[in-house]
């Protein structure tokens, strides 16, 4: 009981700490990891003994105002999936989230998938491994050189994920590279016209700024074939208030996204758009 209460209290302190952190570059990158590690260690302090260096668990017990459901409800049946590049770093989805996304892609039979925010391409390669045969993944990433010239404001904390020599390094050299098309640009300025009405599945995991999540989500609705398909978002968590605000607003005001759900125990939200 005491541990749970302290856990919750620490969780709140962490949230407050994270929101106070207002700048970053390499400091945030490592501090965020360290904060996650502390959160993971909080439970272990009561066990006392050592804990080996594990990847941060990112157990998300937090719930916002989006209706939530557990993973077993999200997936009507458990399909067979393939997973690769299982090792995760700061900026990736958790392995469970990756498995859920892969499963959603598989179950939906998606043939054309669009991703906002490639980062290292770990999600893209897993979507490629699990979409319908012959399927294609289009993934859009903001080039480092354009980070200071985006049409909409970025969240300062986004910059560390933008600052890399090239996106998608983890799908290069895999058997799925040929099914992935890397696009470069600012999602607020990019010309999506040839992709509109052609996608079955959209994953939004780019800038965490409210304005961008709103922008990317509205674009996503236009990308869907006949306005139908699945949209999924990452980072629906108290650490990223821009995402939370945008998703909760969209859920409340956009009729097509009334079915948006938070998948319990993860930072994923998704909606089946009919």
């Amino acid at each position, binding site marked *: 009981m005491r*541990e749970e209460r*302290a856990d919750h*209290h620490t969780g709140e*302190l*962490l949230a407050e*700490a*994270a929101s*106070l*952190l*207002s*700048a970053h*570059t*390499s*400091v945030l990158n490592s*501090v965020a990891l*360290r*904060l996650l*590690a*502390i959160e993971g*260690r909080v439970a272990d*302090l*009561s*066990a*006392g*003994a*050592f*804990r*080996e*260096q*594990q*990847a941060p*668990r*990112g157990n998300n017990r937090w719930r916002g105002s989006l209706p939530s459901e*557990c*993973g*077993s409800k999200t*997936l009507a*049946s*458990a*399909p*067979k*999936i*393939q*997973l*690769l*590049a*299982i*090792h*995760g770093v700061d900026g990736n989805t958790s*392995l*469970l989230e990756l*498995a*859920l996304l*892969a499963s959603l892609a*598989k179950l939906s039979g998606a043939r054309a998938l669009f991703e906002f925010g490639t980062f290292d391409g770990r999600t893209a390669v897993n979507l490629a491994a699990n979409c319908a045969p012959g399927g294609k993944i289009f993934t859009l990433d903001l080039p480092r050189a354009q980070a200071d010239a985006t049409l909409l404001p970025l969240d*300062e904390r986004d910059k560390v994920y933008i600052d890399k020599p090239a996106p998608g390094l*983890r799908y290069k050299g*895999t*058997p799925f590279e040929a099914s992935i098309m890397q696009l470069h640009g600012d999602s607020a300025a990019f010309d999506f016209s040839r992709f509109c009405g052609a996608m079955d599945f959209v994953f939004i995991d780019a800038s965490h700024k409210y304005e961008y999540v709103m922008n990317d989500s509205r674009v996503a609705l236009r990308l869907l074939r006949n306005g139908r398909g699945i949209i999924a978002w990452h980072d629906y968590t108290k650490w990223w208030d821009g995402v939370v605000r945008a998703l909760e607003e969209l859920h409340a005001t956009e009729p097509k996204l009334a079915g948006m759900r938070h998948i319990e*125990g993860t930072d994923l939200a998704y909606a089946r758009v009919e």
Partner: protein
Amino acid sequence: MAESNHHELGVQACRDGRLADALPLLERSLLERETSERWNDWATVQLLSGRQGEAEVGYRRALQMDAGNTEAAENLGALLASSARPLEALRSLDGLSKQSQRVEQLRALCRETLAAQTASDAAGNERLQRRLAHAMTIQAGATANLWLRALALENALSYLAAPHESAAAPLPPIIPTIHADEILPDSEAVELMAVVSIDSAALRELCLLIQICRKQKARRIFEIGPTDWQSARSLAHAAGDGSELFMLTPNRPGTGSARGAQSDHRIVQLVGDSASFDFSSFFNSIDFVFMDASHDHEQVLHDSRAALRLLRGGKGMVAWRNYSSEGPGVIRALNELFVSDPHLADMKHIEGTSLVYAKVSHEPGDN
């Protein structure tokens, strides 16, 4: 613009999180007039921007100008302490008032860091890591120390840590480690039956087990003590058509969710406790034994001995879970087996997981 404004504006910008604006303002204010206080604030913005080297220079300059600048001394001490430089940190904190709780905490941290650095054992390193994490929680009072204040988890951590200071020294893991990438490189995929309610660490372990199973071409698998079906489904799938997977699950009702697994004819559920189960009809017939059962030291030893007898011709693969702080009894047992049993001399601990596995290739001798 009046001189004092640059400094004030710089501090305000820092508070608002506009570090890119704060820095030139503070530099401007320093050019106009160098003061210890301004150096301290400049250094803090550097620290917030991730430039620890510059921050250190700034704090030292602040102290050069005014040795009585306690805030700069504390900040420097905290920076050095959290960079695992306890001796220098202590020097910086020297002479600061013993009345300040923060200073006393920093000093205690430094002493402990020193002790851990000189001890240089696994347990010491872990304490050091914990203390370094604790260092980041030391609260700062003053304005510009946004970063330090932001990391104030001190209350929660010390509350949790305090009753456990006297915990027995943890057991060091002695089994040689292998990197997960050596077993499952980034570019290789594993197939699994989708999982919905397993945490990411366990999922990662499952992927590794599947890979080990596949590489071993295991056809008959025995799982001792798993409490859910998710791993069984994926392992049976990896083993392929015509394979068999025996699950010995504890004698508890409602063990795990059997969704989908009942339709997999490869999976045979045996209900029982490994302590009393009669394994003899399975002796000499299994390719891969996976133990995820008891955390009790004696029981793990018992299960492991049984596992060796299960292996077909005494050859195959055995693996265990919970070689971690959650299973000190498992650590003890596996450490003992590693040291004393020649069949298990090949044990490897997969770094970053609680998995240990061993390829067994000798004839089983007398156990």
